[in-house]
């Protein structure tokens, strides 16, 4: 299940393109992936892969686990393993010293110029380990000042560190807020450690909620971007999250990301062991819709594993294990990184301009047509992945307004070790059976036929070209074929979602 990110301010004009109120729906139909973000916020987050799907094509982020201590206990966390809130449960992350962490960041940045953001998140709480967290930031800043810093916190210690956060130029903070009402909170948090004392029950939840709100207000009043994560626990805080959404919206958080509880008994969390279930896809969606009011935005959070390294679906963390990093000689080339980033800036402008050009004439043709298509890509905003090698497909919605990213579908590589497996092909087809076409760099004859039989056209002719422009160009042709009777619109499936964390 993917988490969906909900922008929680409304009625802000987006980019002077005649955006209207009404749930904040922007009328620009922009392909830039900016959803409903205001220009100032967009400027800050456009290169942040966690906040914009388009940025995910060009940029990478990494987390470093330097902060294992925590000052609260959550019922969805088994501290013997990991902070299940921030990473895949049951996967033990490496614990790093600030020195090693900074070296790892430099090593990755030298190898992967796409790396723009480094975060300190779970396991543990970044602000329950202030020395380690800020020492790490300082070391990174000294040698790689172009890298942006972000941190995640449960908020308990936040008010004490807002000034430090500002001094270190941290531009994004994520606070996990699961409740604003202590009666709800006492069923999520068994205890907190605050002012040299362990607090339990409603008192604990009350303190935590107050500290979270205070910290949130302090950050936003300083202009620091705050995203709020909430874990949806059915029967505990599901209905209540609407109130949380209101509370954080009114205090200036710029995004609200509602994530499903993950609670397998084998993770050994309190919820896992007591049979507290996670939400179904429908329940999650219903709640997100209630909070959202408008669907026109970023839906790309892959609930990444915290220590993953790389772009879109690629995980290179094995090249950067603690042992390997300790041995490495690192050459950090700021110029090469700058050059790459300037190149990306230009690419993105080109892509947007190309899509705009392509749009001419579409509106009359398209009417109310609404078609989903899938794309195999390994990043850079191009159709550049072989069908058989795709670990995920990006799904775009085509309408009179152009192409809009609406989500991704994870699949197993159809082509494992050089030969395709019939079974995997079936699951790939069921993952994208709501799509009229799939765009690939290349595809074999057999899978192409099978897809056709399932009513999905495999399109190779736009290989290595810009995604959105190509989709619109194809869409025009498709509409023409519909009119001439060369193609028929068919009843389509639901598209099945796969559970679990994504690796990058």
């Amino acid at each position, binding site marked *: 299940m993917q988490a969906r990110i909900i922008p929680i301010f409304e009625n802000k004009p987006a980019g002077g393109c005649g955006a209207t109120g009404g749930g904040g729906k922007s009328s620009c139909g922009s392909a830039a992936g900016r959803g409903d973000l205001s220009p100032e916020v967009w400027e800050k987050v456009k290169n942040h892969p966690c906040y914009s799907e388009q940025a995910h094509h060009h940029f990478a982020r990494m987390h470093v686990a330097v902060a294992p201590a*925590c*000052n609260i206990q959550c019922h969805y966390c088994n501290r013997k393993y990991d902070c299940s809130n921030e990473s895949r449960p049951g996967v033990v992350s490496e614990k790093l010293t600030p020195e090693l962490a900074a070296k790892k960041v430099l090593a990755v940045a030298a190898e992967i110029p796409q790396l723009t953001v480094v975060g300190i998140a779970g396991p543990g709480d970044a602000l329950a380990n202030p020395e380690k967290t800020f020492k790490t930031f300082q070391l990174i800043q000294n040698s790689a000042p172009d890298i942006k810093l972000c941190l995640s916190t449960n908020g308990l210690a936040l008010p004490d560190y807002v000034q430090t956060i500002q001094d270190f130029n941290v531009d994004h903070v994520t606070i996990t807020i699961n409740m604003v009402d202590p009666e709800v909170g006492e069923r999520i948090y068994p205890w907190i450690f605050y002012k*040299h*004392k362990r607090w339990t029950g409603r008192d604990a939840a009350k303190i935590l909620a107050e500290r979270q709100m205070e910290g949130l207000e302090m950050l936003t009043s300083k202009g620091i971007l705050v995203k709020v994560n909430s874990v949806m626990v059915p029967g505990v805080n599901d209905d209540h999250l609407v109130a949380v959404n209101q509370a954080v919206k009114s205090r200036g958080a710029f995004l609200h990301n509602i994530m499903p509880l993950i609670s397998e008994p084998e993770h050994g969390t309190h919820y896992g062991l007591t049979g507290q279930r996670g939400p179904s896809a429908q329940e999650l969606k219903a709640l997100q819709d209630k909070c959202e009011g408008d669907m026109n935005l970023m839906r790309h959070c892959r609930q990444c594993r915290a220590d993953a390294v790389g772009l879109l679906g690629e995980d290179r963390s094995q090249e950067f294990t603690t042992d390997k990093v300790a041995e490495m000689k690192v050459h950090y080339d700021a110029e090469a990184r700058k050059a790459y980033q300037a190149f990306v800036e230009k690419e993105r402008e080109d892509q947007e301009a190309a899509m705009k050009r392509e749009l001419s004439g579409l509106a009359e043709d398209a009417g109310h047509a609404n078609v989903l298509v899938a794309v195999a890509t390994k990043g850079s905003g191009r159709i550049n992945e072989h069908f058989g090698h795709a670990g995920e497909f990006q799904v775009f919605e085509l309408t009179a307004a152009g192409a809009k990213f609406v989500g991704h579908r994870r699949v197993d590589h159809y082509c494992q070790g050089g030969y395709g497996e019939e079974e995997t092909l079936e699951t790939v087809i069921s993952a994208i059976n709501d799509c009229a076409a799939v765009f690939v760099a290349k595809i074999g004859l057999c899978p192409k036929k099978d897809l056709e039989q399932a009513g999905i056209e495999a399109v190779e002719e736009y290989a290595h070209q810009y995604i959105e422009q190509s989709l619109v160009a194809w869409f025009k042709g498709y509409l023409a074929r519909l009119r001439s009777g060369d193609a028929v619109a068919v009843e389509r499936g639901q598209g099945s979602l796969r559970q679990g964390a994504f690796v990058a």
Partner: protein
Amino acid sequence: MPYKIVAEECTNCAACETECPNDAILEKKGTFIILAEKCTECVGHYDDAQCVEVCPIPDCVVIDERLPRYAA
């Protein structure tokens, strides 16, 4: 003097290390230990033993029965 850390339970999260008012807790060969001669059971500093209160694992920080209780 009498608190100790049960090594098999400890997750090495280091939460206790920073809370101890007497710097009695340190990491040694990958696990955390309490230096008995430095531990005052937090007497004179706090009402409750900080390491016990902050530790996320039940029964991980416990009284060391082999030693006499701290007397100020």
